[in-house]
């Protein structure tokens, strides 16, 4: 009990310190404003932005949640309240569970591959800090282009007739598979493409973490005879764990709610092999025209995402890396 409470006190004091640090000069805010300045000014200044955000972000989501409890007999017909019926139908639909499985594979695949590659490249970049500017600006390229453009490029790259990959395989005397027509391989290609577009941010985040590591730690480990791999594993990795956590959660957010890459690359096919939950929502809404049913799926994704976000905020707070 005493241990617990003292721990709590210490943590509260730490939090207070952090808060003070975040607001320099006692907040740097004026209570009344300077001479000749209306008290209304801050309200006038912030109202347009707040209205914008409420109308365009908060309201639609609440509207969507609300409408997910309604149902229309036909598209555009009158809607009636049906309670949780859309949800119970969703949970009894095998297509939903299929999409949930596909999403789980997609998210896990992207996070694992993304993290491994992100760490590899971040460590590599960290060792050549002097040439970083150029390398970094090239590295970011996949992140600043449209998802659709990335998907088209990957369709060209993985084309079964003339794609670079199959041309290379043919060069060694084998026949390349039809990547995007094979249900098992298509998911791999989609994961690959999604990782390609998301990786730059992961690398930059992890690299930022690596560059804050005090070099004296590394030197001390060198003096103690720790090898390169040991230093990376036992020293650098624990020190950048906040950045690793942030990257993982960001990647899962981006892949759980991401539609662009999947839609433009495979459209959910072949044989629904890449029908993730966002795809399921999209086709329910705009192919089957069951808007309210689709809103139930959307709400489910949003709730999953909210859980992830809270997890993220909690972890980031705890590690004190909220920027």
């Amino acid at each position, binding site marked *: 009990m005493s241990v617990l409470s003292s721990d709590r006190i210490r943590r509260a004091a730490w939090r207070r310190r952090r808060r003070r640090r975040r607001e320099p000069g006692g907040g740097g805010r004026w209570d009344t404003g300077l001479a000749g300045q209306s008290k209304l000014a*801050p309200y006038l200044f912030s109202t347009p932005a707040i209205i914008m955000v409420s109308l365009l972000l908060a309201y*639609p989501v609440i509207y969507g949640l609300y409408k997910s409890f309604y149902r229309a007999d036909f598209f555009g017909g009158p809607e009636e309240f049906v309670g949780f019926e859309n949800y119970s139908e969703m949970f009894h639909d095998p297509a939903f569970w299929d999409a949930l499985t596909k999403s789980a594979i997609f998210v896990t695949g992207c996070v694992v591959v993304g993290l491994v590659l992100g760490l590899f490249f971040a460590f590599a970049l960290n060792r050549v800090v002097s040439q970083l500017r150029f390398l970094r600006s090239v590295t970011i390229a996949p992140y600043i282009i449209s*998802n659709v453009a990335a998907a088209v490029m990957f369709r060209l790259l993985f084309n079964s007739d003339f794609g670079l990959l199959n041309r290379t395989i043919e060069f060694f005397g084998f026949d390349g598979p039809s990547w995007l027509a094979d249900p098992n391989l298509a998911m791999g290609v989609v994961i690959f493409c999604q990782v390609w577009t998301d990786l730059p941010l992961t690398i930059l985040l992890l690299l930022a973490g690596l560059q804050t590591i005090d070099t004296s730690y590394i030197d001390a480990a060198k003096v103690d005879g720790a090898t390169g791999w040991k230093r990376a594993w036992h020293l650098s990795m624990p020190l950048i764990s906040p950045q690793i956590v942030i990257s993982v959660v960001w990647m899962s957010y981006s892949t759980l709610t991401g539609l662009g890459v999947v839609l433009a690359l495979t459209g959910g096919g072949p044989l629904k092999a890449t029908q993730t939950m966002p795809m399921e929502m999209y086709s329910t809404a705009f192919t089957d025209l069951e808007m309210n049913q689709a809103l139930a799926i959307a709400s489910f994704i949003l709730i999953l995402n909210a859980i992830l976000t809270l997890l993220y905020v909690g972890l980031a707070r705890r590690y004190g890396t909220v920027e």
Partner: protein
Amino acid sequence: MTVDTEVTTTVPPKVPAERRPTGSSGFGRVVRQILLWIPLVILMLWTLVPFFITVMISLKTRGEVFGSTSALPNDPSLAAYREVIERPGFRGAFVNSVLVGLGTTILTVALATPAAYAFARFNFRGRHLLLLFTLIPRLVPSLGLMIPLYQLAVTLGALDKRLTLVVVYSGMLVPLAVWLLVGFIQQIPPSLEEAASVDGASMWKRMRYIVLPISLPALITIGVLSFREAWNEFTLVLVLTTTPGKRTLPYELYLMQGIQGIENYPAEAAFTVLTILPFILVYARIEKYIVAGITTGSVK
């Protein structure tokens, strides 16, 4: 890394790193340098090969794409680019993308700047809404907005309007923009403005001559990020536009894959290059602002 490993283990500890004997002097160092650069070469290949292949295919003819085994075009031609540019779908979408991009940039900066100033400088009721600004964009991905915004746009008759896209994109970007700017404005010492105030500068003058000039880098970052978002956004333009003349580039590119019976790969590749190129050119000039914005901004 591996060479480094061997070297360190053979050397007694306490020898400073620089004076460590590196194998057979010159040769060892060369091998080390090579091993150091291999991951970076892989990174460059990983990043650039898709771009390179796309550009090469865009320079080929339709027959050559299938016929030739070489990645490089035998006889580079810009025919595919001419074809794409002459297509009304492309030109219309390009104009739409530019207009929506500029509109979004202007509206986002115009809304975010005063709000950020208020949040950064004043103790007023409602300034805790700032926290909301940090959470909302993550709780509300564009996926969750697709259907509600579509339905609202149908009800309000706002489908197929560039202004709708501008307003929606700005709404999505304002929280991020405010967040970035608040951090920046808080770093400007309030004493600067207090001094100006003593000299009789009104709030408008202080904003015009002190706050805005100092926060110009942050404003550029916000502008570029807004433009990028509007230029690349796909999921919302997909549901908010229905007629051909109103689409932006990503939507038009997405449609291009399906509409021809036999796919015209060089044209697709050329379309992709023309979609990417404008922003890459912008990006090359002001890269440092973007990297700063992306790392502090998009993850928060």
